[in-house]
């Protein structure tokens, strides 16, 4: 009985953590003593580092998706803001006395002065918090827009801005027909 045991060298501390056991399911070996093949090779350091590199690239990909989602959310907010400004100007054009536009030379948003035909005004769609540490001014002005009024066809308001400042291809034009309200 005892003679049947065999002691492998370095049996305790050098035993690999992962051991692949292959058992033949049919064919080879005796019926009462199935054939076992031990493959004791584990992962090398290079393999582990390569897997970590792949994991890192995957993690970077996930963060890139988050950044993309953040950018898309900002675009939606810009579109909402542009729509709101167009609606506010539509109310202003509809309800402000027409003589005010001719009598006022300067524009103040809180003054209720409508646009004259062909006139355009500038503003900013996005006012993020200033995070430079001094917080002065408290809010910044980003994504400039231009709104203009064309009297043709009963009146059309056009608001133009660029999603990526400096990239003319990212120009967005939103229009509102005053007669269609």
């Amino acid at each position, binding site marked *: 009985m005892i003679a049947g045991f065999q002691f*492998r*060298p*370095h049996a*305790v*501390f*050098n*035993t*690999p*953590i*992962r*051991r692949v056991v292959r058992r033949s399911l049919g064919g080879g070996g005796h019926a009462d003593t199935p054939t076992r093949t*031990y*493959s*004791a*090779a*584990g*992962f*090398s*350091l*290079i393999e*582990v*580092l390569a897997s*970590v590199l792949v*994991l*890192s690239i995957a*993690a970077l990909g*996930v*963060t890139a998706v*988050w950044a993309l989602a*953040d950018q898309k*959310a900002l675009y939606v*907010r810009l579109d*909402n*803001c542009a729509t*709101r400004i167009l609606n*506010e100007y539509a*109310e*202003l054009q509809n*309800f*402000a*006395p027409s003589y*005010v536009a001719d009598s*006022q030379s300067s524009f*103040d*948003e*809180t*003054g*209720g*002065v409508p646009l004259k035909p062909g006139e355009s005004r500038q503003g900013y769609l*996005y*006012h*993020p*918090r200033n995070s430079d540490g001094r917080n002065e001014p*408290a*809010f910044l002005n980003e994504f400039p827009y231009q709104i203009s009024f064309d009297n043709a066809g009963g009146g059309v308001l056009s608001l133009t801005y660029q999603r990526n400042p400096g990239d003319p291809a990212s120009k967005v034009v939103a229009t509102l027909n005053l007669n269609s309200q």
Partner: protein
Amino acid sequence: MICLSNLVFPKRALGETPNANSGFTLVELLAAIISVVVVLGAATGFMITAMARQKAVLEASQLEAIHSQLAASMSDAMKTADDFQIFPDTTRLPASIQTPYGGGVPAGKVLSCRRAAIQRDFEFKDGASGSGEIIQTTTGFNGTPVVKAYAGVQPAAAGIFSMENGLLQAHWSVVTSMERLDFNVYGTPLNMR
């Protein structure tokens, strides 16, 4: 016999073909654990930052939607009013709907609009932190007021309600954790058109 030298100094060097009995050495295991911890730590940090930003964006969007609703309600009250008045504060508001408005001011903190025995009041209340809130009170036939409060309001420098240039208007800003949103409402009551 137990050979401790195999634990401390692995025989297999980097780049060598592993032999049949080799698995992880302690150094490999530690390197793998450290690398995984670094990668997972960075990913978790990014995720926490993204989640915090997403929460701030959601709160800002909700506040914008709530104040857009207020602006729409205010615009509707202005445009459909039979009678309206601007007051410097709520002490000048008439005690009941049947009482005439009396004299008002060109710009103030309270706007009251009436139509068919329904009165809608909008009052700006200063807050302790620099921003205040707009209280909307709707009083109907039964005299029971329905009150809604809209927080995070900063009035325009010229005042929140005014009759500048003969146009009834309201201007305020909403301050969220991310940005400032400006709201402008214009309307002319029916009897002024």
